[in-house]
């Protein structure tokens, strides 16, 4: 019967493929992004951030970068930057989602926590010429983003996506470049959910606690690795200073250095590392950067 009637066959095939579709794809609409998923702190994009997001899509950054911190410990450690794994409620304003399927480059879900600098100096330098910051990087150069931002549709985008905006937000777009927009987007990623800053506690105690690592031998192996991984892109491979100041042979006190590394100096682009590095590792760094050799 089936082997002889194509019309019945087609209908039956449709029914068969709709079973799994209904249960795993259509039904979940009932609760995904529902009230249970919502997170009050998560805010929609501003016009500038949304423009940046659209540029991110235009350039296909998602082909190399994912935007989800998985629930794995190593993922949280590497890409959480003091925050936690990604939650459904963080993505409710993302149309489309940009989770990606490849990590040719690092995950960017919480990149805003990693580079807090309000001027975006790190991002600008990196996007213009990634190899100038990370020599072995294979990320393309995006210097061409230093072009005026097309704001023709900015307001219409906000309306279509049903995001709140003010006239000030729109005025803010004047004179901005595409680079400014994409940096605004990078700086927003992952910053909505407050991360617990251990900084306040540890830096207060830093004045009393003495640096447990005072000799080079005790720290060199660990600290050099930590430095290369977390600091070299801003302070130079040899601590000679690039985006951030030179650190070689710093004359600051141990407690002062601990406080800066742990708490950061957000406004000027020095990130806080209290969420990424534990006290032990920060103390080792303190000893390491003060050295004036090597």
């Amino acid at each position, binding site marked *: 019967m089936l082997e002889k009637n194509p019309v019945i066959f087609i209908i039956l095939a449709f029914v068969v493929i709709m079973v799994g579709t209904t249960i795993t794809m259509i039904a979940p609409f009932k609760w995904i992004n529902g009230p249970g998923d919502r997170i009050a702190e998560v805010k929609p994009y501003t016009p500038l951030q949304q423009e940046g997001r659209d540029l991110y899509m235009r350039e296909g950054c998602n082909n190399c970068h994912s935007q989800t911190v*998985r629930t794995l410990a190593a993922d949280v450690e590497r890409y959480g930057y003091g925050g936690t794994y990604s939650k*459904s409620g963080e993505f409710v*304003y993302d149309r489309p989602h940009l989770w990606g399927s490849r990590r040719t480059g690092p995950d960017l879900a919480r990149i805003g926590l990693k580079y807090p600098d309000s001027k975006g100096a790190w991002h600008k330098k990196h996007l213009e010429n990634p190899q100038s910051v990370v020599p072995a990087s294979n990320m393309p150069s995006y210097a061409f983003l230093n072009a005026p931002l097309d704001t023709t549709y900015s307001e219409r985008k906000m309306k279509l996506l049903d995001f709140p905006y003010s006239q000030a937000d729109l005025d803010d777009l004047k004179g901005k470049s595409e680079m400014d927009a994409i940096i605004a987007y990078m700086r927003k990623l992952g910053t909505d959910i407050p991360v617990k800053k251990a900084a306040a506690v540890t830096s207060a105690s830093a004045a009393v606690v003495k640096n447990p690592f005072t000799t080079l031998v005790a720290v060199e192996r660990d600290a050099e690795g930590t430095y290369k991984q977390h600091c070299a892109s801003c302070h130079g491979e040899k601590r000679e200073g690039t985006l951030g100041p030179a650190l070689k042979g710093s004359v600051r006190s141990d407690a002062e250095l601990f406080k800066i590394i742990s708490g950061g100096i957000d406004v000027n682009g020095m990130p806080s590392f209290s969420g990424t590095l534990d006290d032990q590792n920060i103390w080792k760094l303190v000893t390491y950067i003060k050295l004036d050799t090597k």
Partner: protein
Amino acid sequence: MNAPTRYVDDSVKGFIAWSMVWGTIAVVVGILISLQLAWPQLNYAPYLTYGRLRPIHTNAAIFGWGVGSFIALFFYITQRLTKTPLWSPKLARVTLWIFNVAIASAAVTLAMGINRTKEYAELEWPLAIVVAIIWVLFSVNVFMTILKRKEEQMYISLWYIMATLVGVTVLYVINNLGVPLHLFKSYSAFSGTNDANVQWWYGHNAVAMVLTTPPLAIFYYFLPKVTNNPIFSHRMGIIAFWSLIFMYLWTGAHHLLWTPIPDWIQTVAMAFSIMLIAPSWGAVMNGYLTMGGKWEQMKTNYLVKFLICGITFYGLQTLQGPMQAIRTFSAFIHYTDWVPGHVHMGALGWVSMVLFAAIYYATTKMNNTEIYSIPLANAHFWLVLIGQLIYSITMWIAGVQQGSMLLATNPDGSLHYSFMETMIAIMPYYKIRAISGFIYLAGLSLFIFNIYKTFQKGTDSPVAEA
């Protein structure tokens, strides 16, 4: 005896020729992006940067080469299995031209950065509508031919063909739903986690309905033709068919393990992925048993070589896939180069191998001639096989190496390697992969030359065949 049927093959030839053009472009762009990953200076901004070229590669490969040749071969197979000429040859010619305009526009708009970013559904809404129209025109043509058929019994290939027509329509339309902002930009109808769930329901079933059922339809038709053996078991084919199209739709979330997608959806996807081994291997065994023990044909018949090699890679692919769908293994290889290794074993080893055999065979039949050169076809076989093996094997090694480095932690819980250390470790593999692309391209060039020469020496009379 009825008068012999006159099959209409001009569009079959047209689609074959154009799919080969798009396939070559896909491979050339594939080589370029693989070079860019090793030498980032090769990013010529802005139109030729990696982020814009990678979707051109995947779209030219899947839609230009894959779908283009599926359309050709579905027209070819359907006519012969129904003993009925194509319902509307004119419509087929129109479809071919819209198809070419669409693929060319896809390449241009993607280079301009007009991109929805949803994998395999990157094209913006006006083009997505054109793609849907092409699909409907093509489906109607095939389906009407089947309706008017002279051969009552529907062979298993027709089942796979019809399932493909329905399946792709449903998938493509739903995943492309959105709200247009202007002609070149729209926003997805779904947001965040919902959007991801819809996307990978689509993404994985593009694998099912584009990279599995069409090559299976083609395989089931051409293997008996080429070997002169009947298919081993029609019943086994039917059972495998229904369970395959039932199970595939549950598995999308295996692309989203450990993400905010609800856990039960991930677990269901994992379970169904493993169950998929059964119907997949049903098809593989059916293929092997159809050989009827005449394995010497692997040596004497170049087409058998392509087909058996293809179904073998399909078998491996459908063992590797379920393994990747297991949470613990996914934690390790997801996001790494392992996945492009998996993808290209399927795309090059399974899909393209079967297409090569089918195109060789159909070309000789449609032109009433023999193949121009069997030695060249053999050289083609070895070059694409070696190219593909180097590609996949290097990427599996790179994936495992990077995956284990990224997860490695020190006793105190901190990470052992920085991201860049893992990238530097896999750089050599990127370079070897680029070389494998050139080997593959050399093989592909022999194929194109051979087909061109065969067309040239053939006679063009549309005579009937069995």
